[in-house]
């Protein structure tokens, strides 16, 4: 059975063109780009090209791009640099719905004498911008807000938030891991100081990340070592992955239109049909300010793990914000921050599409999912009582 992969916010398949671009750098072109000989020099040239491709996707200049090992490293480097370059400031502002790369880092720093404000979100997952303004103090070193949420796809107005932070002379960082490649981003048109993203979310391999640092922003390296990345990130370059990421960014720029037309249409079809066919289901998060590829749907009175495992029988891949799947006994912190009721939060499923999905796949899910939900509901002690009360009203 063919795999129907609708879990692209978790990771994506490496594009065939990306793999092809990378392969020679695992075998014959293994030189070190720092070497003096032309054998290494040809790799350095290819790295420069890749840096240009990456910069171009987000409207940056190549020297504003630092290659890292993953999105988490980029986030850590950004926040720690902001604190290191502003040692007199101890306050960090972020949100309750951040990815663990920021959320856990915040908790860790709070344990080391920093003060962390986690801004609340509204029911639709959007930020209260007035709360952001109110949270800023002369002690605030950095504001870090995700561009798009990994679970709901909800998009924060980070460009506006960056301006608000700048008015108070505060650095602004965004975790744009889910946003890059799915929506147009032009760093020339905003004031964001630092931006993180990751290769494996846009069809490059795992193990390569990017930290954008705006020219003129003071930076203190996280990984100290050699002169690589202009001394901003030591360690021999992951040449095949950087070259792969360059190709992936070039493809992403080309696919941006598809992402916002064809992919969006498939997502909308999936969402509309599932909501129509499955009673007591709803979308979590704002449906307007949202990534084109993501939908997070809750099916009341069933548990997400059961849904995922039954979909797995058809090789349909998605993910859930339920407690059972998180390993933490509580449903996702994002859904809880949005005040999604427990009856809904435990039964939440995230579908995230990519340009590789087809309409046939979406039709397959639309056909298979309603009986799965019905089957689990027939086993749920809550469903009968609900169905019973409905019949009488």
């Amino acid at each position, binding site marked *: 059975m063919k795999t129907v992969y609708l879990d692209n916010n978790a990771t994506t398949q490496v594009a065939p063109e990306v793999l092809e671009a990378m392969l020679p750098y695992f075998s014959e072109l293994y030189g070190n780009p720092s070497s003096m000989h032309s054998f290494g020099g040809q790799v350095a040239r290819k790295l420069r090209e890749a840096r240009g491709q990456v910069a171009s996707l987000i409207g940056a200049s190549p020297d504003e791009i630092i290659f890292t090992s993953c999105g988490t490293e980029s986030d850590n480097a950004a926040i720690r640099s902001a604190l290191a370059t502003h040692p007199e400031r101890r306050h960090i502002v972020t949100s309750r719905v951040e990815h663990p790369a920021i959320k856990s880092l915040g908790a860790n720093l709070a344990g080391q004498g920093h003060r962390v404000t986690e801004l609340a979100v509204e029911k639709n997952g959007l930020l209260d911008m007035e709360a952001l303004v109110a949270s800023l103090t002369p002690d605030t070193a950095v504001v870090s807000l995700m561009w798009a949420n990994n679970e709901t796809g909800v998009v924060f107005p980070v460009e506006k938030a960056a301006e608000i932070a700048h008015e108070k002379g505060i650095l602004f960082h965004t975790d744009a891991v889910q946003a890059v490649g799915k929506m147009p981003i032009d760093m020339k048109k905003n004031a964001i100081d630092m931006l993180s993203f990751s290769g494996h979310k846009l069809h490059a391999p795992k193990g390569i990340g990017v930290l954008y640092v705006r020219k003129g922003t003071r930076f203190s390296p996280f990984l100290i070592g050699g002169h690589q990345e202009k001394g901003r990130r030591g360690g021999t370059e992951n040449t095949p992955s950087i070259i792969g990421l360059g190709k992936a960014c070039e493809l992403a720029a080309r696919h941006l239109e598809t992402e916002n037309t064809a992919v969006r249409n498939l997502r909308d079809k999936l969402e509309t049909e599932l909501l129509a066919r499955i009673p007591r289901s709803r979308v979590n998060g704002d449906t307007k300010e949202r990534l084109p590829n993501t939908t997070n749907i809750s099916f009341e*009175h*069933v*548990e997400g*793990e*059961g849904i995922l*495992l*039954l979909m797995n*029988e058809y090789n349909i891949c998605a993910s859930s914000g*339920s*407690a*059972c*799947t998180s*390993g*933490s*006994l*509580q*449903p996702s912190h994002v859904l809880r921050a949005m005040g999604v009721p*427990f*009856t809904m939060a*435990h039964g939440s499923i995230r579908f995230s599409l990519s340009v590789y999905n087809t309409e046939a796949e979406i039709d397959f899910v639309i056909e298979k999912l309603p009986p799965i939900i019905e089957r689990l509901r*027939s*086993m*749920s*002690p*809550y469903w*009968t009582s609900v169905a019973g009360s409905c019949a009488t009203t």
Partner: protein
Amino acid sequence: MWEYTDKVKEHFLNPRNVGEVENPDGIAEVGSIACGDALKFSFKLDENKRIKEAKFKTFGCASAIASSSALTEMIKGMTLEEAAKVTNKDIAEYLGGLPDEKMHCSVMGQEALEKAIENYRGAPAKETGAKIVCECFGVTDREIERAIRENDLTTVEEVTNYTKAGGGCGNCKDAIQEIIDRVRAEAKPSGAPKLTNIQKIRKIEEALEKEIRPSLRHDGGDIELIDVIGNRVIVAVRGACASCKASDITLKHFVEAKLRDLVSPDLNIEEVAP
């Protein structure tokens, strides 16, 4: 992805006995939707007072559904006395084991069975005097004590895996540790073979180091073991304790109480003559 056994997967994909028994002899509901899993369980007896029919409805993960299904299969044909002896361990074993983090699913099955039997016998559905320890998941001290005893648990993490207590905000973790300490202290056979003098001294030293010194040091004090004669524990106080007027009280109420609790209830503490 969880590492479920084939038997868990099989019971999840083809659950046995889903539904509610008509005119049940015993019925129970445990868990809640807020907790993430819940089980409604009912059974009917035959003329020989053996379980003829048992059914379930479960909201929860695959392992909760599989545990419920397994339970209904296991107890069919049992008398209530036999069924009452089924433990969460038996359920987990029947399924070829459960991931550590999912052991609470088997505990939920055992609880439902127990409450349904109580319901049949007309016994009180709620334990009296039980105190909620974990507010997030509504877990009582009784439930935690029982899980510790029956599954020989030693860490807070294990208690969370079996009962969910401590798996939410985590504020009750200290309280859980206290229960573990208490239950494990009780579990030590009181009529145990007498400690040899060497064993006794070792245990006293260990208790002093682990349980007592950290508290004293917090206030700038310290304690030294001078001798053990029978049940007389001779100590000297040091640091801030040496000049503290309340050190007598600390010795009797804290040090002696701790040593009696951890080593032997017969110990008496004495301060070395200055």
